[in-house]
């Protein structure tokens, strides 16, 4: 069922998209912000990286994409912390604005093709040879590097204050740290990771498209939640495990998609499946509490009936 080509493809895509899951781990789990900049930042990464590659700078494109993503995250953070825009709306506003920016970056065209362009992947292929797993190597290396840097960063004093911002902002301010600043740094980093994901993906598939980032926030969250559920990291405190879960979830998600495509499930229906996964996973604690309550009530009622039956 899974040919080596399919497995490699899922691994490669899993690695590339896991940067979005890592980004959402930072914004959604650590900072406790549902950051809807994600969709636009992903496309922004695609656009910048493709345009840079076409101009002959594929590797530089990755860094430019990260800088652009950080700027997008910074705008969302500014709207939220300085201008009192609710966080969800701040993300939507940036995302909407980014649509135009992304088109502009791609020269007001809705897609950029890189079929005849040297990309980071083709350059590596030229060095390593057609038969080598160069795609997986590059995608894996970028992900690993991002993971290591992110984890190292979260252990620093600034990283600690960002983690505490999602946990107890009052206490962060009481430690003489401005939470507007920690939110800003956190969202810059998370969106630069998202943009890097888009940047790598565009060069990987040799095309960028204005719609590539659609639903990326839901897909990323689905991946993150799948990983957390399977590795059981929701209640663990190790940051390493949590990052590993984001990557693992993303790879698993890509395998699920590969499986679905094999089973001739139309690709369009996958979004519905992702949406259901995210809705159920986020609703799970509330659903469980409701279920426990009903069970306790049924039990109490049964006990009561039994007692009354005994008397009568």
């Amino acid at each position, binding site marked *: 069922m899974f040919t080596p080509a399919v497995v490699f493809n899922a691994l490669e895509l899993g690695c590339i998209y896991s940067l979005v899951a890592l980004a959402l781990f930072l914004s959604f789990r650590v900072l406790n912000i549902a950051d809807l900049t994600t969709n636009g930042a992903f496309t922004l990464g695609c656009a910048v990286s493709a345009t840079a590659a076409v101009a002959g700078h594929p590797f530089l494109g990755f860094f430019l994409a990260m800088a652009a993503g950080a700027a997008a995250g910074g705008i969302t953070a500014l709207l939220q912390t300085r201008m009192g825009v609710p966080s969800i709306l701040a993300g939507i506003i940036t995302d909407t604005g980014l649509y135009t920016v992304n088109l502009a970056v791609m020269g007001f065209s809705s897609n950029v093709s890189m079929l005849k362009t040297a990309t980071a992947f083709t350059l590596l292929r030229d060095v390593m040879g057609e038969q080598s797993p160069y795609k997986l190597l590059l995608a894996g290396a970028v992900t690993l590097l991002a993971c290591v840097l992110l984890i190292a960063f979260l252990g*620093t004093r600034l990283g600690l204050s960002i*983690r*505490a911002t999602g*946990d*107890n902002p009052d*206490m962060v*301010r*009481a*430690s003489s740290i401005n939470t507007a600043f920690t939110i800003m740094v956190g969202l810059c980093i998370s969106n630069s990771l998202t943009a890097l994901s888009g940047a790598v993906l565009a060069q990987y598939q040799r095309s960028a498209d204005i719609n590539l980032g659609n639903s990326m926030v839901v897909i990323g969250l689905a991946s993150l939640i799948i990983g957390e559920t399977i590795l059981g990291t929701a209640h663990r*405190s190790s940051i390493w495990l949590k990052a590993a879960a984001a990557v693992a979830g993303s790879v698993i998600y890509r395998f699920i998609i590969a499986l679905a495509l094999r089973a001739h499930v139309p690709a369009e229906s996958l979004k519905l499946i992702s949406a259901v996964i995210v809705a159920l996973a986020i609703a799970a604690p509330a659903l469980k509490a409701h279920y426990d309550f009903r069970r306790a009530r049924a039990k109490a009622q049964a006990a009561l009936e039994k007692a009354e039956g005994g008397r009568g």
Partner: protein
Amino acid sequence: MLYLKNVTKTFNPGTVNEKLALNNISLHLAPGDFATIVGSNGAGKSTLFNAITGDFIPDAGTVTLNGRDITLIPDYRRAKVIGRMFQDPLRGTAPGMTIEENLALAYLRASGHTSPLSRITARERAQFAERLAELGLGLEDRMKQPVGLLSGGQRQALTLLMATVVTPKLLLLDEHTAALDPATADKVLALTRRIVAEHKLTCLMITHNMHDALSFGNRTLMMDSGRIVLDVAGTEREKMTVDDLLDRFAESAGHALDNDRILLSREEG
């Protein structure tokens, strides 16, 4: 040390909910002063603290700390020199992070000189363990555990340590033992007394326990409807009983103290 000059604050001005919470308050604390504050519900005690820490900018008046006018300085900057504790044990710590990480954050107040990208050093870790051991709660063996696992009393003790790990110029305690059971509250209060004495801290402590109000520190303030209605210290205070204090309050405020929790504590004593 701390000067408040004619500080006034009205919440929701011009609406039906208009509330004059601080009414032209002036207060001077000398270095090393430890004043307790008692007062009716809604008298403005917590609001007074909020004005000092910078939760809001007062409508009028100035706040000066150590000769520096801090009225317009944002709260997080003032936190460098002001330690604060709340009644709610959940407010002072980050539950998802370990004891060590929480202390490291509190320690940031000292480190104008350390880089934001530096990590907790072995030396700091040893220091934290030492300070934790002084609490006598065995927390030094649990430094890698999330604070969310600690009891309310343990958390308040940790918060007290966090507020004082970098010696603050001013320590503000807002009924910090009110949510604890009596035995634990006594422990945390004993710790408070010790730490304040050890570091010769200047301290304001809101309490609803009239005995504590007289036995802690060197000065007692009473508040009512946004004003400080009574300020006693020295021999006058030493001779005072709880009943004297309540009588003096009624005299100055024009009505008896109506804080339900305070009346309870009166009967206990």
